[in-house]
Every structure is written in structure tokens, then in C-alpha cells.
């Protein structure tokens, strides 16, 4: 391990595009070093070109690969000498009817969202304990309410995977306390290239009309919550789920 950087270091999975990339930008602007993990080589190269190689190091791989988590943590230590935060962001949506969903569909959602998050958390645990760091897991508002956006597309396997993240978050929060805090965000709609490409303008307008805030968030708006949960300001927050969703899911009391 090299001499530790004076800056905190965060490892982010699914970092090349969309919300993950927004988290990279936000945290670098806030003074963090970033270890960016993604299977998209081109996206990682463009991230480095955008933010500069001084503060970001990239690791190419699929989070379902068994040894990727350990390798990525080693890269963090080799390059920056410390690890203070982990953002388990990698994932993908699957809109498929239950009747057409296979066992493999379900298990792949579990692998990408839950098993990968667990593997990265365990690999990072000793260094996060040392740094009294934090983990942020990225879930979805659909984990809390099912596919609630019009036209309520079938997405049982995706809902299961993203809800699994919440159970994982709560148990890890207990297991890693008091040194490491573990929380989740469950975002609503985001204006990422991927999500916008799924819908024609009319469909998108109708979906957004069902959101009390009357819009979907820019990815960077969710980064603010990730930044907060990683920060000392959230030192009393662990085992919790923040769902910034423009009022699309209102429940509890």
C-alpha cells in the first residue's frame, strides 16, 4: 500500500455512465479520489478524459465476476492508499412479465444487485472500518412500491433484486457498526441516456405527469444524497433508506 492520499477515496461500481458517472463527478468536485468500476471500457476512458487521471483510476470488469471486488479494492489501495467510501451502484433494469421471467432472470437480478454489492462490501470492509467510512447502496423506488410509474410495466425480477438491496443494507448496517455506516438510496426516475432512450416523448410526458414534482431528476440530483450519506454530516444515519422521488412514492407515517 502506498502512502495514503490526503483526500478520501471512494469506489463506485457502474461508474461509466448515468447515475454512477454523475456520482463520480459530484464526489471528485467535493474533493474525493474515485475508483471507477465498470464493464464499459469506452465509458471509463471517456470518464478519465473528462475528469482527469489524477483523481480517478478505472477498473474494467463485470461486477458478477467473482474476483473483481477484491481486485478493485487492491487498485484503490495501490493508487490512493486508503478507502473511505463504497457506492454499490451497478445494475440494470429488466421489464419482463412474471409469466415470461425465467429462474435465470431472477437470479441474475440477484447477482447484479445483491451478490455484487455484498462482495464489494466484504472486500472493502477492513479498510472502511479503518477509515470509519460508509457504504451507499443504490436501490430503486420500485423496491418500495413496485413498478409504480405509468404504465406500470411488469418488472417482478427487478423489484426483487432492488428490494434485496434494502435487506442487505439493513443487515450490513448492524454487522459493520459502529465503524462503518451502511445506507441506501431508492431513487425515482432519472433523466439518464438509458432511461430516456426507453420511451417516446409522449410516453415520457405521461409518466412524468404522474410525479407530483412534475419531472424526473437529473442524475446529479441523486448524487447529492450519495454525497451526504458518505459525509460526516450523516454520522448518525445508518441502516436507512432515502428515497428522493419527487413524491412519486409517498408512504409510511
Amino acid at each position: 500500500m502506498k502512502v495514503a492520499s490526503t483526500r478520501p477515496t471512494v469506489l463506485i461500481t457502474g461508474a461509466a455512465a448515468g447515475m454512477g458517472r454523475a456520482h463520480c463527478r459530484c464526489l471528485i468536485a467535493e474533493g474525493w479520489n474515485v475508483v471507477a468500476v465498470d464493464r464499459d471500457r469506452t465509458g471509463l476512458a471517456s470518464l478519465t478524459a473528462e475528469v482527469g487521471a489524477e483523481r480517478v483510476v478505472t477498473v474494467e470488469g463485470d461486477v458478477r465476476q467473482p474476483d473483481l471486488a477484491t481486485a478493485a479494492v487492491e487498485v484503490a489501495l495501490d493508487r490512493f492508499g486508503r478507502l473511505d467510501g463504497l457506492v454499490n451502484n451497478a445494475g440494470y433494469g429488466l421489464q419482463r412479465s412474471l409469466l415470461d421471467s425465467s429462474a435465470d432472470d431472477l437470479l441474475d437480478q440477484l447477482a447484479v444487485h445483491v451478490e455484487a454489492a455484498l462482495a464489494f462490501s466484504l472486500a472493502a470492509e477492513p479498510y472502511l472500518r479503518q477509515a470509519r467510512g460508509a457504504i451507499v447502496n443504490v436501490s430503486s423506488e420500485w423496491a418500495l412500491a413496485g413498478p409504480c410509474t405509468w404504465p406500470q410495466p411488469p418488472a417482478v425480477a427487478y423489484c426483487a433484486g432492488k428490494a434485496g438491496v434494502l435487506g442487505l443494507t439493513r443487515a450490513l448496517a448492524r454487522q459493520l457498526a459502529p465503524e462503518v455506516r451502511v445506507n441506501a438510496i431508492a431513487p425515482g426516475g432519472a433523466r439518464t441516456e438509458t432511461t430516456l432512450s426507453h420511451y417516446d416523448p409522449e410516453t415520457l410526458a405521461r409518466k412524468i405527469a404522474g410525479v407530483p414534482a412534475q419531472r424526473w431528476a437529473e442524475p446529479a440530483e441523486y448524487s447529492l444524497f450519495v454525497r451526504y450519506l458518505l459525509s460526516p454530516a450523516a454520522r448518525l444515519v445508518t441502516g436507512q433508506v432515502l428515497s428522493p422521488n419527487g413524491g412519486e412514492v409517498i408512504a409510511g407515517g
Partner: protein
Amino acid sequence: MSAAGALLVGGSTERASRLASGLSGERLWLRPAHARGEVEGLISLPFQPAEGLRLDGLPLPLDLVAVLSDQTAAGVRPRTLGARLELMREVLLEAFLPVREVLRRQRDWLRLAWIISPTPLNGCGSPERAAAEAAVLGLMRGVTREFATRASTVALVVDGAHDPEAVDRDLAATLQVLRDPGSSFYTGQVLNLTSGTWIAGA
């Protein structure tokens, strides 16, 4: 008394027996590999999630499918991470495959119930178990939206650590109420039957 059948999924022989005694109509049990023995009055079908599931010959219609997803609480506790992950996958497949097969075969309304422990909600337990049972909750919510016109769903939270017989008696009585079509508007909810051992907002 219900004229339609009830399908129990998973659990031990003892639990299946206790629950079956509180349910009316024809009762079937998808018996996991670790459960031994038959239960009087209960048609039992062997079920190993890893091998898939075919329910040809299932007497339909059913008005209740109840999946015992809280079994990791009292059941096997693997030591290695790999084995715990395998159990997590099995819990989720057990919650998924029978429900998919019944919904493929039947159009009549029915109650789908998943029984979980407080672990996914309070984090007391292993991360894999909490994730598995939380994923079951997500499954329930997804099914609720997709099949709203022909199935009503519920997740029942039970804590059988201290008095499993009493818990299962109350659970069976609750399931009996919820399989009444008059309860169909109650769907997508989490019902807490933990006698106050777990109390939390929403």
C-alpha cells in the same frame, strides 16, 4: 369455509402440519428436500427450486398460495458465504416458481401470501438472509402491480423464535381470513404478526 384449495410452499413437516390443520379445503404442500415425512390430510409434492417446477395435475382452482420464506430463521444455517448465497437463491426461487406456475394455470382470483421474518426489515440476521427475504418483499410488490385484477398479495411478518405453535396457529387463522375474496382490496401490504417483538413505522 373455502371450497377451493390451498397450496403451502416450503417449511418443515411440523410447520406444514400445524398450518394445514388451520386451513380448510383441499391442502397441498410443496415439500422441500430437507423436510422429512408425510402429513396426514396434506397432499405433498417434492420440490427442489434448483430443479425447476412443474405443477401438472395440480387441483385448481386455488384460492391461497402461502410461501414460507421465513424458513431460514429456524432452518439450515450454512457457515460458508458460498453456501449462504446458495440458500439466498433458493429462498427467492421458492418464492417465485410456484407463484408463476399457478398464475400461468389459473385465471380465478386468489390470495398470494409470503411469510417472512422481521430480518429484512430490522436487519437482525445475516446479510444474505435479510437480502433474500427483502427480495421476497420486492417480488410481492412486483406481482401486486402486474396481477392486480386477479390476485391479491400480502407479506406476513412472523417471529417464531419463542412460541412457534402459537405463531402458526395465528398465521393459519390470518391466512384463512385473507383467502376470502371479500379481502381482495387488501393487497400489496405488509402485515405484522410479531406480537410486538418488532415494532417500526411503515
